[in-house]
């Protein structure tokens, strides 16, 4: 192979720059992102069975926000910490894809 291969990319390992090709799997890898702790998102697709809270409501850690049905299982989505429901983004009966914003909290 020739060094002049135009597909070579610069790849940094321990401050040194290397010329190299990448792989499909490497290119497709998911970049890590810090979780936004003010957002509650669905981790699987499913339907909203019931919503138990309203915006502005104060909740304690562990209290149920809503029930989500996914893969024939009812999953209770609970408050991760003490806080206030700022907005509700979904309503009863809605079918949701994965990673949908369900609610924002403060």
């Amino acid at each position, binding site marked *: *192979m020739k*060094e002049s291969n135009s597909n*070579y990319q610069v*790849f*940094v*390992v*321990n*401050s*040194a*720059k*290397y*010329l*190299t*090709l*990448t*792989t*499909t*799997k*490497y290119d497709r*890898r*998911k*970049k*890590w992102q810090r979780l936004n702790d003010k957002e509650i998102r669905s981790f*699987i*697709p499913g339907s909203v069975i019931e919503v138990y809270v309203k915006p502005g409501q104060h909740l304690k850690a562990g209290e149920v926000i809503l029930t989500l049905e*996914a*893969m024939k299982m009812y999953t209770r989505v609970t408050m991760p910490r003490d806080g206030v429901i700022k907005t509700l983004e979904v309503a009863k009966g809605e079918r949701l*894809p*994965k990673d949908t914003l369900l609610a924002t909290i403060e």
Partner: protein
Amino acid sequence: MSFKRNILDLRKRKKEAQQGGGEAAIEKQVAMGKKTARERIKAILDENSFHEYDLFVEHTGRDFNMEKKVLHGDGVIIGTGTMYNQPVAIYAQDFTVAGGSLGLMHARKITKIMDHALKMRVPLIGINDSGGARIQEGVNSLAGYGEIFYRNTNASGVIPQISVILGPCAGGAVYSPALTDFVFVVENISKMFITGPGVIKTVLGEEISMEELGGAMVHSEITGNAHFFAKSEDECFEQIKKLITFIPWNNSQKALRFPIQEPLLKKSIEEIVPTDPHHPYDIRDIIKAVTDGSDFFEIMEYFARNIVIGFGRIQGNTIGFVANQPMYLAGVLDCDSSDKAARFIRYCDAFNIPIVTLEDMPGYLPGVDQEHAGVIRHGAKLLYAYSEATVPKVTVIIRKAYGGGYIAMNSRHLGADFVFAWPTAEIAVMGPEGAANIVFKKEIDEAENPAEMRKQKIQEYKDKFANPFVAASKGYIDEVIEPSETRARLIHSLEVSGSKVDPRPEKKHGIPPF
């Protein structure tokens, strides 16, 4: 005498049973670009060497009207034959009979031939082409799978086990191939998955085709489930026939010796490698420069391309090669490349194949995804496999051998028998750039021109440590050699290791970081 009548009757029965699912089903099979199970066996084995057993086995399904159905051979063909005049055991699922679905008797036939293969210490080749469990037989088909997996595990490391995926192989069925040594797949024909596109769509709403989900290239490039990718069944059979020349028939034998050939190298070995350690080249060219006839049979060519594994011969003997590939991801170690190399090292060790390691890597792949994917646990497999292996182990350090990667790539410290280094080798705790940043941090920070100072300090470190002589002075490498000496050194060190004995503490088995 009624012999003639009996014989004619037998012939008639055989002919009927050998038709499998009948003409219409065979036509369908051919229309999909597939060969029939019987054709496949014939294509793999020596001509006229196939001997079939259990042709007249019938299924035992008694529910859902199955009792009225005739399933010839219960959808699988088993037998023995030869490859290069050496005995092998083989089975092939017949998709034309009830979609090759696995019922109790189907599984019994497979386990029968597996038991034979293990007892007789001959390789087992399994051709998978099946719609999966025969639902009508319920838990019996689950029992069948389990009994196959159990035998795959028992036979592992004793006889070579080869899986050929020539059709669907879904659900529980996938675990038999996964337990075997080598998995062959063919573009547009092989499909492997636990859960199919239909269920994925219903449950998760993700739409994906069978080929995208579990096609041949996906398993060759992304999942690492497959070891050999072919564009056609014929190409696949040629790959199997080539692989089998490199491996011994069982774990108490050595691979067949071939006539010695010189490498067919046109240019000198030094010309392959750029002296700038930051520039890439194809490590396979170095392997070809040292193997007989420059023949290198690569395994898992598309998966974790930053490490190269495969078989070649030196002085007619099979050698397993493990080599960093600077051409891809600068040759770094990561989760996938560690898995790939570790399993291959264990294969070589189980089957008495010496291992030659060619090293040129800058360290581990940095990134959150790697750390969270468990690069500690996966990387440990490589250390484990090298340390555990008692076959002859020789390392040649071409250029970079930095840090943890230096240790992992069959260093003296993990039990390498011989370690050689080219004069271009850099054996150091890290690359000069990284090291200078740490060791000379104060000088660089306080300098009037930090960039200039940094450059100067990198050069200083390079001159002092980025060479093979520090490691050589401590005996960590046995000799610094000229590149052109590489083959001769390998030949001699492998010759010397011919009767190697390396006893280990007695144990049931170790606990590798699976």
